[in-house]
């Protein structure tokens, strides 16, 4: 299992379009993926649950990825959250 703690950098956090992008990506992988904020963890493939966390810019979140393609999933998600979204959604 891969676990990582990161800070959300893009302007609108995981609301609106970025949340849609995030969930579209997590759904591409077989691994089970969880996203946690202040110790509350939800299924990262479920958009309503992700939105319900109310993740804003600057929030620290934890990602837990486990499964056959965890390595690839982990890399792609970090790429989206740390590199792609902060540029697209400043």
């Amino acid at each position, binding site marked *: 299992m891969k676990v990582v703690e990161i800070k959300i950098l893009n*302007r609108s956090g995981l*609301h*609106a*379009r970025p*949340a*849609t992008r995030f*969930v*579209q990506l997590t*759904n591409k992988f077989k691994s089970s993926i969880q996203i946690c904020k202040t110790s509350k963890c939800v299924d990262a493939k*479920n*958009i*309503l*649950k992700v*939105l*319900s966390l*109310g993740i804003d810019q600057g929030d620290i979140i934890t990602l837990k990825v486990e499964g056959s393609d965890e390595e690839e999933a982990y890399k792609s998600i970090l790429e989206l959250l740390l590199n792609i979204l902060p540029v697209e959604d*400043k």
Partner: protein
Amino acid sequence: MSIMIVAKGIPVSEGIAISRIFKYYSRAGIEVPQECKASEKEVEKLSKALEEYKKYLNELLNVVEESERDLLQAYVLIAETFVSEARELVENSNVCGELAIKQVLDKYVELMEQSGSELFALRKSDLADIALALIEHLSRGRVLGDVVGVKDKIVVAEELTPTVFFRIQRAGVKGIITAKGGITSHVAILARTYGIPYVILPSLDMTSIGDDVIAIVDGFDGKVVVNPSNELMEEYTKKVSILNELRDVLKKYVFEKAETLDGYEVEVLCNIGNVEEGRVASTQGCEGIGLFRVEYLYMSSKPPVEEVLVNTFTKVANFFEGKPVVIRAPDLGADKPPPFISIREDNPLLGLRGIRFLLEYRNEILKPFLRGFLKAYAQSKNLRLMIPMVIKPGEVYEFVDVMNIVAQELGISCVKDLELGIMVETPAAAVLIDKFAKIPQLRFVSFGTNDLTQYVLAVDRTNPRLVRMYNELEPSVLRVIVRGVNEARKHGLKVEICGELASKPIAVPILLAFGFRSLSVNPRYIGTIKYIIKNTRVQQFEQLLDAILNADEPSAVEELVIKTLQGYNADLRPLLLFSKYRS
């Protein structure tokens, strides 16, 4: 015995519909069986329903504008969530798919209520919308077909979601009335795109209106009539036939140059309130932007960052390459207080707003705005800048000082070429135009007739009890305008008008006689306005000026205009689409 009801609302999408009412209730209370057993193929049925619904959403994705796409993409993900959880319920508790979907919906609605959050501007109605669509696909019309019978009717609803709009649009809806919504909402944009008359009626009480009664939706004046009298029916039937005759004519005029019968060329610009409107305006015959209201950028929890400003201005400038694009510095305060600054005022319309607000918050708001604007201007020289709510030249000098400091910081020297203007919307500015003309930077004035009218008349235009008193054709208002125009022209300032008055066909001949050669109008009226211009003999109206300025009532002004147009057999039909005493 039916009683006629006439109500005034907000015109959202032009056009007139006369038809029977179809009351549409959003699916807060979806009716599915309380108990049901899963069939052998229940899971398979669920997957199929999801596939069908996704196919439908994907079709929509192809036809909607970009701004609508995010929402639909979220719909796809939500539908997937619903079905995946419903599948578990079917497998574990052996209920049927419909009930499972309903239970999942209830769970999330409760979650939304508990967290109190507006998930991504998603409302309960959106979730219900998705659940219902899935249930419909599951049951193939067994539970309901909520849009059956919409054909050729006027839909009355509390509120509509974009997907419901598409459903009723496909079912053949003729007109729309809702209690909630906004002129710039998704549904409003869609209604305009599809040419369906739409009025928002905040006072709407759905229980007071019967199903299937005759009603009129007047998307020009924002009027709704239920159980119309014979007289009104006749008037509106006539309007509809005029509209049908004119529709194609007016469309054709959208792209023509506007020249009066006696050869004066008139520039027709447009007013916009966001980038998307700018994009649309650039394809609708607008010869530039006379007013870009940028307040929307300031309506979130923090002011926009520089890049957002630069991008926004640059994008719109690019839509109109080589044509003017007037950015109005944000007119914050009054009815548009930004959420990140709290101001308590007893009388905000006379309070800290416009230039006053900008100078008060010069470091927080004005400087960042000017940085964004000047950076965009350095790339796009067709951008112009306009200052709102000024009452004396001192404010403009102060504004220019700040602008010069910012330009220096940025190393932008072209600021001296910038076309700077003021919005004339206070009586003070209107009577001081000769003084403003002495400001070296100042090149143009643009009359903002909405505020100017309410300040000249001391009539709050949002006060429902004063609806009849707020009229831009009051001779007092016209006198203030004509005086200002004369002064501006005398002193070599370019004169424009961007208030709603310029979008009113009956006012156009008067404005041309005043000397306006640049009108900035609502994009949806561009065809009508150009048509009126091409039917106007300016010299005839110039001879009428004394009579107009000495009229007793706005109605007398209107009659003078109509008589004069009739005098040389001009086409009056576009005027007849608008009611006589507009508010």
